[in-house]
């Protein structure tokens, strides 16, 4: 396994390098450069423009610019953003990457759970109303034009019902008198979520280790209590209202992303499950007198999970480009929106930084799925 991980790390570095190079020349292939945005400005004399070019290093030959960017990336210092001047790229990214990560990890986990749950239910009980509605609506949402659907969600939940904010990360009115920054509040929220997840996993793991079947039943309530305590602490800490505001802004984009992507998992689970229910070990489980719920979850669905997890990699990639579109529509200031703006304005350092981060993120996700697979399927061993 260690050897495998080392090899994988090597491959990841190589892939990142390719992504980097490809992205660099793709941006360069666009006509003009950052300074040319001022070309139409009649007040700006040409020598100032040249000066601007020189100060950003845009007058240097292409290969030299490439090497400078490469060196910056390798040293982990992406330079200074043209557009957000004088903020360093790293600074912009550290603010934006977590916002995207939260949005799209939550949506991925949610859509995976919903999809898997519905998929196994409709495969188990064929021909019911549930199968009909879930399949039709899932397939419709899966194929719908994403921006149109996102706008429709905004129209329904923000304009008609007025339940949720239209977009953006927070409501300036709420934050007018805030003494803390949005990044601080968001950081606290992330920390809480992270600690809760760790707690949930630990609780489940310890309860399982005790080997008493009855005990695992307590995991659910235990985690629920911990969640309530965490939320209570968060609201007592004085930033509760602010956190709630951010949370409100998260709901609509997450819901939209979840709705357009759960159907993939659902249909795949259904198909995979239709295969596993015919397996002899499922019949054996039933013959042993296990309750139907255990036959379904512990044997049929557990095995049906394997191909679904493999496909998780693809749905992650789907979620990445989905997140660029969603962030655009909801004006969510995450990595996707940042990348979009940076590309449009040829803010080269920021483009490169965002690309490397997105690349790193998808490669890591891929690796995690592969490692998870070893855990899920004892027949797989990586040498």
């Amino acid at each position: 396994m260690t050897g495998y991980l080392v090899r994988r790390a090597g491959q990841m570095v190589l892939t990142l390098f390719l992504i980097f190079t490809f992205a660099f020349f793709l941006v360069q292939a666009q006509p003009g450069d950052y300074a040319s945005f001022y070309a139409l400005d009649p007040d700006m004399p040409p020598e100032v423009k040249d000066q601007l070019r020189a100060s950003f290093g845009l007058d240097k030959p292409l290969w030299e610019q490439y090497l400078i960017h490469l060196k910056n990336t390798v040293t982990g210092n992406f330079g200074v953003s043209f557009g957000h001047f004088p903020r360093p790229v790293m600074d912009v990214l550290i603010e934006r990457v977590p916002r995207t990560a939260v949005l799209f990890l939550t949506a991925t986990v949610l859509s995976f759970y919903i999809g898997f749950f519905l998929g196994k239910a409709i495969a188990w009980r064929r021909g019911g109303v549930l199968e009909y509605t879930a399949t039709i609506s899932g397939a419709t949402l899966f194929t719908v034009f994403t921006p149109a659907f996102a706008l429709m969600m905004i129209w329904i939940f923000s304009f008609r019902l007025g339940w949720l904010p239209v977009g953006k990360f927070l409501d300036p009115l709420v934050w007018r008198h805030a003494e803390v920054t949005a990044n601080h509040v968001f950081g606290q929220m992330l920390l809480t979520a992270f600690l809760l997840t760790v707690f949930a996993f630990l609780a489940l793991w310890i309860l399982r280790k005790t080997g008493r079947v009855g005990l695992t039943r307590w995991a659910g309530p235990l985690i629920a209590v911990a969640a309530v305590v965490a939320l209570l602490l968060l609201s007592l800490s004085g930033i509760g209202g602010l956190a709630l505001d951010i949370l409100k802004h998260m709901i609509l984009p997450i819901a939209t992303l979840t709705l357009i992507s759960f159907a993939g998992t659902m249909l795949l689970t259904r198909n995979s499950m239709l295969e596993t229910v015919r397996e002899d070990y499922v019949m054996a489980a039933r013959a042993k007198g296990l309750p139907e719920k255990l036959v379904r979850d512990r044997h049929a669905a557990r095995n049906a999970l394997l191909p679904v997890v493999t496909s998780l990699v693809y749905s992650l990639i789907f979620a990445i480009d989905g997140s660029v579109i969603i962030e655009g529509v909801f004006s969510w200031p995450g990595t996707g929106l940042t990348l979009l703006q940076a590309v449009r304005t040829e803010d080269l350092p920021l483009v490169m930084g965002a690309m490397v981060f997105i690349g790193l993120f998808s490669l890591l996700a891929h690796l995690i799925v592969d490692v998870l697979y070893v855990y899920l399927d004892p027949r797989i061993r990586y040498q």
Partner: protein
Amino acid sequence: MTASAAVPVLRVVDLSLRYLTRGGEVKAVQDVNFELAQGEALGLVGESGCGKTSVANCLMRLLPDNAQLVAGQVFLDGQDILPLSEDQIREYRWQRIAMVFQAAMNALDPVYKVGQQVVEAIEAHGVEPTLSLARERVAGLFRMVGLDPALMDRYPHEFSGGMRQRAVIAMALACDPRVIIADEPTTALDVIVQDRILRELKGIQQRLHMAIIYISHDIAVVAEVTDRIGVMYAGRLVEYGPTAAVFRAPLHPYTAALMGSFPSIAGEKRVLANLSGEPPNLIDPPSGCPFHPRCLHATDVCRQEIPPRVERGDQWADCWHPLEAAPALEPADNGGT
């Protein structure tokens, strides 16, 4: 051998089952009757597709969605299990009647440790109060079937074919069932392992005084380990009786043909009777006696009328022209090799 006349643990009455398929109704089991006393061993034999597994599945009421029970009763310890609810029947499965599956390769779930899959059955029925006692029980079962208890924590893919077969037998024994169905328990294995496992299974069955149903297409294999034998053809039980009697003098030409299509001890193929062609299509079985298209003794009456039951002592067969006590040995004498 136990030829007790006590209350049968298992009694099958007029069982008929069909599968609904796009091509029509597959009449997989028709009017099957038999019973099994405590400690008794019954063999069910017949070619592939004649309905042996279908009968076995009825005994546990483990039927695919397209199966339809047309008629009949299956009494387990005096209780007809066919009308029971899904919850009620779970109590019968594995505690009263368990199964050694036809394909041991696939009967074990690849993602769980083998021991865990046996423990799971014990837990489902609350046979042992704690997990450690359940694991101890599994260790005992593993020893009984000749497996190292350390193998409990291995996954199925780490087992050889013979080991898996033993594990599946251990699994069947987990809740002390009164009846065990062994559906082709050894066909996937090489002959030597096959023979050894079969003998061990027989030993365990006698020691624990369980009733057992061996299912096989190989009548010679089944003959070694059973008290009674039932021969199935086209979904029907066509001959039934004490193994020794049936072997000495089969009444039904199909039984004789099955016996003849296996090599004798000497190794040469002594053809007692020909068995050519294929079993019939069960969607549209032949009229009269279903065996008539392949039977050397068939006459017009066989083609038109369902054959009557003929009895000789404990042995019976459904045939218009049952074989005499000394079966058609003559062709064998002529037709060496």
